[in-house]
């Protein structure tokens, strides 16, 4: 009836494009990661270094610290986004006047470029002259200084990310909630289940795949955050917001540490792929028999 050849033809453009623009660069990065290479070292050429870079990475305090704050950042940011996104999606479930209008407003942050998001938040949070520190200072007397307080900077980057990306989560969860069949809910209400019970036993399991899929995309994107943070804090104060993307950026851009930077990237990509793969197989794949 239809041959697999046709299937492969349909897949071919994707595979070709991703091979030439994704896989080949990746292989090059892997190749470089086994070399010592800084064009401004005494020897500016690539020197084969075996696994030397990787030996160094596992003891590299700056890298491990960066990895730590990244994981913390991703965890809190994505968690908040999912919770807030769910609540907002739930709030869109009722009918009320101006729903479409509010929904459009809510999606606005999505269309602002990260580099601009970083600029806005930088100007809003600059100590003493930003509007947020000013309002906090005059209303509750709290002195917000993201140039000095590591915690403040960390939290502001999370708030910024939540502001920017929650709309994506909301949109996807609206879609999931809209598609839920009404029957189990009616049944549960007849049985006298409480709101919380309904959420826990019926809603959550049914929207779990959607939640996981959203988490998946947000996880990938949050792990490689660069532009916003570079613009907002530059990775500071100290190394408090030097997330892995920023760390790699500083390593390969100004420091031109191509060899070591590539090795770090390979390790980061490895960790990301493993995390995502575990998530993917663990949460999604068992729900269906795998075929191949």
């Amino acid at each position, binding site marked *: 009836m239809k041959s697999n050849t046709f299937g492969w033809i349909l897949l071919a453009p994707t595979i070709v494009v991703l091979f030439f623009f994704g896989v080949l660069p990746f292989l090059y990065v892997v190749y470089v990661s086994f070399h010592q290479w800084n064009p401004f070292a005494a020897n500016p050429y690539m020197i084969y270094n075996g696994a030397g870079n990787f030996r160094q990475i596992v003891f590299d305090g700056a890298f491990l610290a960066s990895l730590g704050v990244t994981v913390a950042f991703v965890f809190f940011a994505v968690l908040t986004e999912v919770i807030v996104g769910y609540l907002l999606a739930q709030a869109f479930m009722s009918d009320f006047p101006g729903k479409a209008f509010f929904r459009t407003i809510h999606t*606005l942050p999505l269309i602002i470029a990260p580099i601009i998001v970083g600029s806005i938040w930088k100007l809003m949070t600059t100590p003493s002259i930003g509007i947020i520190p000013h309002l906090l200072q005059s209303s509750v007397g709290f002195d917000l200084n993201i140039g000095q307080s590591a915690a403040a900077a960390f939290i502001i980057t999370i708030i910024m990310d939540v502001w920017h990306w929650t709309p994506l989560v909301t949109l996807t969860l609206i879609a999931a909630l809209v598609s839920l069949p009404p029957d189990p809910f009616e049944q549960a209400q007849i049985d006298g289940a409480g709101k919380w019970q309904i959420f826990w036993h019926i809603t959550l399991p049914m929207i779990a795949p959607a939640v996981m899929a959203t988490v998946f995309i947000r996880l990938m994107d949050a792990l490689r955050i660069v532009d916003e943070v570079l613009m907002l804090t530059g990775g500071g104060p100290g190394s408090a917001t030097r997330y892995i993307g920023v760390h790699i950026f500083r390593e390969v851009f100004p420091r031109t540490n191509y060899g070591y930077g590539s090795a770090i990237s390979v390790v980061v990509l490895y960790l990301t792929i493993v995390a995502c793969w575990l998530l993917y197989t663990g949460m999604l794949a068992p729900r269906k028999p795998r075929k191949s």
Partner: protein
Amino acid sequence: MKKKTPWPYVFFWVLISFLTLFPIYWLFVISVTPSFELFSTPSVILQHVDWQNYTEVIGNPTLRGYMMNSLLISSGNAILTTTFGFFACYALSRFNLSGKESIFFWTITNRMAPPAVFLLPLFLLLTKVYRIEGFTLLDTRIGMILVYCTFNLPFAIWTLRPTVDGIPKELDEAAFVDGASPWKVITEVVFPLCRPGLAVTLILTWVFAWNEYLLAATLTNFNARTLTTGLSEYVTTTGTAWGIMAAISIFTLIPALIVFSVVQRHIVAGLTFGAVKG
């Protein structure tokens, strides 16, 4: 669900909208305030409006060129990724290709790469490898369109797969039985049914491409520079022109806003589509 008075919701949403809009409002405030006034006690209410930054941005032909590049690159990329993604998803959905789950996961991994380090190999590939005589892909729109596929194509496939999977297989089978060619089945049976999902994918990939900065900044020089890279021209050692940056940002918002409000309806419809089928 329960019938309640809608006003608490409206109130709630006004509040949320306020939070959502405040940074955007602040962007506007920045764009109409001289920089030294930004460096003084801030005030939530606009004191006075100075349109100078806007007139400068509008009068700048270079920025118009950047705007054009941005539009062409993001539109081209969105169409390309959505088309390729759609074909790929159809193939993954309807054919029994060996290792297709692995292929699916592998395509997604392309989005995970930390961008900074991939700039060097991409630069080398674009300038040295992918060339025909004197023509290289560096600093060309088509080059950027292809490069953006690395993060948009995985997204398109990830988004479209459930949609395509959600089209009942019986429909294409019936068409095949009627003697339609596979190509015809895709374009005339499956494609129309997937339209909402495709619209969502199109718009979100468009937004991602429109907003991309790092790759564009490195891989374009003169001819294919986009608006986001144009922004970086205003961050200099002699002062960051916050006002101009903000004014440009407001301009970058406009096309995105128009596109978004037009297709807003489709987005939710598109997201919903596959699920309802289930």
